């Protein structure tokens, strides 16, 4: 909402500077987002006195010496006939940008140098006057900014009015607040002191009334509880006076003509939307407020043809719709230069109906903006008198009659306020007398119903006050939030434990950043060819209307983005939500962690100019790190991925924790350039985020099932060895079809408790190894907890082990 400083001052004769007003409104009413000056383009202009002037022969030009306050007289050539020595004029120094868009340059004219321009009214954009330069009647010293001499500029406050306070969408509304805050009473602006007289002809009715041949009928009293029509005759449509043009310009509304400007003046000044119809164009001089008929259309003021439906409320004449109620008028009945008789509409329309209508039509207007938030429905009578009076005065017309249809608004319901609760909620002792003074100051009526409890009736312009806390907010803000105390006091500990999925997410994130991965937070939307994903009903862009299920798919797109920027060494992860289509509940959500590896395993170093790239074994290791971080102490196994569906990822391993599937490791297929390295992905499900109702609305259920606490039994200490270890290596010829894990299982089983460690350290194929086999080498470390192992024991074990391997697996040692 644009608020003009000077217009507001016409309502409240305050003495605040624009900056003080900004701070006052921001602290107590609504935030002022910014201050701007109208005619800021005139800021560089100064006033200057002509000190000498002589005609340049054979031209209309004069050569002048001008004092612009800089101490040096400037030589200026001027083409105006009225240059007078000793007079002060608006002056543009060379370099000044003129309102017309060109810059004044220092130049030579007829051999004379000109260092600037003395300006006419038209050159300053102050009217059409161009017979000569603008003589200023002022005592101001040369060099004074022009805007300090001429009251051309206004300051506009950009106020952020929130949906609960439509009463602030006018200068009157702001004036009420400023009056309450400053203690200066507000009044009607002087420009409204001499309005055209009230007509003697009047008619009213519950749903229909007519007088002087003009009829008004409301067919939908819910949609339009009150409709006031004023007939104005003998209108001379023409330009508006200067003061009105300036008022409207300040709030960003262009002057159109005196009739339309009068309606816009009432809109921005008082918050009441009105509309002027050309009465001659209304069939049978009749106005009907009704629902639109199916198939009915209307060309609105903006030239668009609107298709109407019976859900919409329209204003019609005897034949057809002429306006969309509360939204926009029709072009056919609009006021033109030839209009002589006007029907002025000042009405109150249903907020939900205006909202539904303008949404269905996909449009919005200053009028609909106010109607859907709520106007002061008690003020329509006064507003019709005021708007018609102004319009008639401006257009030299006569107000002929007023036709009022509909019922008076129901009185507002009082809200009960316990004065003690004001102090209890705000944490400060606020006497009831102060509460009363603050609330009555902005129009509330307060009656003490019982000791300390008041019945507080809101004024007709306030629609947001239905409970005591609404009143307490008004008390708090008028008093000033900054005046309320802010002492930090102790608190009782809460009953809510950390959500286990938060705890797990933090642990996994820490493990991954420690492992050198970079956290991402990409958009969780995706595209899809089929309907297996959750679809957004009303996506903004149609290219990604689905919610993703797979985090590695999202990461793959981010990897491709990096590749397109020549970045091929990627270690990305995300902890985020996976949306799974679920028949019954619509959506099932899992919190997952996804990771992606691509490119160099280590940064290049001069000792290793070509480091290896990430391979499947890095992915396997990282999956183990992730799973152990998420489920500390649990048994993590990466197993054959049989049965895992291939999606964004071609599975290499299934990740199991204590025998339960938690995710998958695999290779990712990207849209990648030839130079990109192989890409690996890991995706684990950390847990499910339930969206079920905790309890029925309006109830609680402290016994509701809660998510299980995050896993994590404390680790057990293993005593450090006190005896020496003995080790030996085994190189075995293992058929390709035999899994290394099976060989390891046999080795462990045959070695007994004393096997402390079993590490595979080599794989070899080639010379000396038969085709279809590979040589796998393990180091076995044995230790007896109490004594040193003898060489003989170790040799015995080795022979026993080889025998078992040969018997059980037909695996033999590789001979050198």
């Amino acid at each position, binding site marked *: 909402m644009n608020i003009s400083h000077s217009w507001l001052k016409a309502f409240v004769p305050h003495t605040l500077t624009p900056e003080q007003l900004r701070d006052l409104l921001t602290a107590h009413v609504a935030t002022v987002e910014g201050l701007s000056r109208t005619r800021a383009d005139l800021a560089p202009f100064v006033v200057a006195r002509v000190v000498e002037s002589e005609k340049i022969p054979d031209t209309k030009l004069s050569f002048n010496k001008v004092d612009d306050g800089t101490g040096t007289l400037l030589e200026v050539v001027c083409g105006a006939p009225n240059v007078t020595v000793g007079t002060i004029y608006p002056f543009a120094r060379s370099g000044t940008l003129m309102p017309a868009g060109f810059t004044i340059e220092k130049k030579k004219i007829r051999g004379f140098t000109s260092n600037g321009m003395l300006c006419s009214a038209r050159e300053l954009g102050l009217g059409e006057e161009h017979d000569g330069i603008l003589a200023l009647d002022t005592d101001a010293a040369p060099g004074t900014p022009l805007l300090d001499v001429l009251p051309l500029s206004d300051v506009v406050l950009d106020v952020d009015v929130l949906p609960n306070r439509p009463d602030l969408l006018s200068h009157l509304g702001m004036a009420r607040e400023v009056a309450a805050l400053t203690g200066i009473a507000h009044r009607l602006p002087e420009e409204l002191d001499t309005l055209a007289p009230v007509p003697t002809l009047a008619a009213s009715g519950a749903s229909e009334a007519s007088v002087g041949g003009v009829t008004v009928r409301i067919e939908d009293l819910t949609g339009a509880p009150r409709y006031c029509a004023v007939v104005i005759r003998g209108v001379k449509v023409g330009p508006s006076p200067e003061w009105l043009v300036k008022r409207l310009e300040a709030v960003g509304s262009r002057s159109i003509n005196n009739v339309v400007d009068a309606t816009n003046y009432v809109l921005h000044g008082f918050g009441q939307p009105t509309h002027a119809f050309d009465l001659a164009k209304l069939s049978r001089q009749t106005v009907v407020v009704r629902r639109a008929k199916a198939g009915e259309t209307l060309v609105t003021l903006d030239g668009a043809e609107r298709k109407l439906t019976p859900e919409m409320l329209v204003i019609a004449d005897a034949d057809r719709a002429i306006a969309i109620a509360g939204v926009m008028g029709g072009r056919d009945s609009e006021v033109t230069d030839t209009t002589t008789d006007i029907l002025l509409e000042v009405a109150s329309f249903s907020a939900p109906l205006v909202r539904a209508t303008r949404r269905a039509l996909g449009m919005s207007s200053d009028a609909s903006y106010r109607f859907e938030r709520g106007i002061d429905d008690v003020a329509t009578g006064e507003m019709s008198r005021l708007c018609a009076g102004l319009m008639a005065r401006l257009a030299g017309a006569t107000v002929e009659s007023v036709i009022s249809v509909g019922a008076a608004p129901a009185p507002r319901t009082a809200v009960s306020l316990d004065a003690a609760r004001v102090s209890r909620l705000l944490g400060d002792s606020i006497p009831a007398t102060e509460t009363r003074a603050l609330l009555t100051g902005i129009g509330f009526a307060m009656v003490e119903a019982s000791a300390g409890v008041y019945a507080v009736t809101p004024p007709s312009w306030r629609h947001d006050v239905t409970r005591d806390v609404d009143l307490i907010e008004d008390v708090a803000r008028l008093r000033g939030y900054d005046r309320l105390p802010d002492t930090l006091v102790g*608190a009782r500990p809460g009953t809510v434990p950390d959500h286990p999925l938060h705890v797990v997410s933090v642990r996994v994130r820490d493990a991954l950043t420690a492992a050198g991965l*970079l*956290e991402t937070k990409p958009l969780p*939307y995706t595209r899809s060819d089929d309907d297996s994903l959750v679809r957004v009903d009303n996506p903004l862009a149609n290219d990604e209307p689905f919610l993703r299920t797979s985090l590695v798919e999202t990461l793959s797109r981010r990897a491709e983005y990096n590749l397109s920027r020549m970045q091929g060494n990627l270690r990305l992860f995300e902890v985020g939500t996976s949306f799974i289509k679920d028949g019954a509940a619509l959506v099932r959500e899992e919190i997952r962690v996804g990771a992606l590896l691509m490119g160099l395993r280590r940064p290049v170093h001069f000792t290793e100019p070509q480091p290896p790239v990430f391979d499947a074994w890095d992915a396997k290791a990282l999956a183990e790190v992730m799973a152990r971080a998420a489920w500390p102490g649990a048994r993590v196994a990466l197993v054959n991925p049989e049965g895992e569906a291939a999606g964004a990822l071609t599975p290499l391993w299934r990740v199991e924790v204590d025998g339960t599937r938690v995710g998958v490791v695999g290779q990712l297929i990207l849209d990648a350039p030839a130079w990109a390295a192989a890409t690996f992905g890991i995706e684990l499900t950390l847990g499910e985020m339930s969206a079920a109702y905790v309890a029925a609305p309006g109830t609680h259920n402290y016994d509701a099932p809660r998510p299980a606490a995050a896993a994590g039994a404390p680790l057990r200490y293993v005593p450090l060895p006190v005896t020496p270890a003995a080790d030996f290596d085994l190189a075995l010829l293992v058929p390709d079809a035999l899994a290394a894990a099976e060989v390891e299982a046999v080795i462990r089983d045959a070695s007994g408790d004393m096997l402390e460690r079993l590490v595979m350290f080599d794989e070899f194929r080639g010379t000396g190894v038969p085709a279809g086999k590979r040589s796998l080498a393990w180091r076995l470390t044995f230790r007896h907890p109490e004594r040193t192992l003898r060489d003989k024991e170790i040799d015995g074990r080795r022979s026993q082990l080889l025998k078992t391997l040969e018997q059980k697996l037909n695996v033999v040692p590789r001979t050198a």
Partner: protein
Amino acid sequence: MTLDDFTSACSALAAEAPARIAAADSLDAWTAVRNDLVGRTAGRLTAIMGTLGEIPKEDRRVAGQAANAVKVELERLLDERQAELATSRGAGPQIDGTMPSRVTWQGARHPVTLVVDEIIEIFRELGFTVALGPEAEHAWYNFGALNFPADHPAMDLHDTLYLGKDTVLRTHTSPVQVRTLQAYPPPVRVLIPGTVHRRDPFDASHAPAFAQVEGLVVDEGITFADLKATLSHFARRFFGAGTKTRFRPSYFPFTEPSAEMDVSCGVCGGSGCSVCKQSGWIEILGSGLVHPAVLESAGLDSTRFTGWAFGLGPGRTALARHGIPDIRILYDSDVRFLEQFSR
């Protein structure tokens, strides 16, 4: 051979040896010097001591002591030098310490996570725990339970992505307020981080999905003063001890009174600059006393319990804190951006 000859031979050796030992610049050179000086077969001191028998008997004790002193001294010097050479591994060239270290890839939390984590850390000190909730949410939790008037312009502030008639992508983390109050009895002191969705175009200053952090306190006797005190404390911890706060009227359907909190501009200190649009203040968060209707949504007695809540967008805070000009950079996941946050 006289005692004098013997002792002067010893002295000469003792005078010459230190320079030679010091000059040995490798273990091989050291071995050669040692063999030459004190070697058991060809050592010069060994040779000198071999002449001890030629000295008159009465002088032998003195001569022997002199030779032994030289021997002890030389062996000390040799040991020292050997230790020096061993440490510097004098064999091979000196290393050039200006060459780069062998680094590993450094991981990093996302800048938005850094902000969220810091907020959680500050509120943990005040006894807050972390609550979570779903992103695909019942319309009732997202709007109805939070006192949004049906079909009201207040809804225009939450341009909503729908998944069905009564299911939305939550437009704020506030639904978790009601979920938490339904599941746990007061006193409740929780922080609620999470992703929220709005039907906003993806441009330099908007994203359709973004992070939010919400705080909620509900107990008996909670006041607006508690709200101001706690949030001002948070601002001083997060933005610096000298930070001033300002509260101004605002509107959220689920709080009453509602307040927007600003902090004094950290760039100009409050005098006005381009960052704070000349106001001296930076908008940080929305807050207010929990609306009684919200408490009633969770079956609480709103005459007995009161509370306060706040919500802020850590994404915007991250942009301001790190001078990131375009919000899309947070989502692009360019590794060169993400790596800037590794420490």
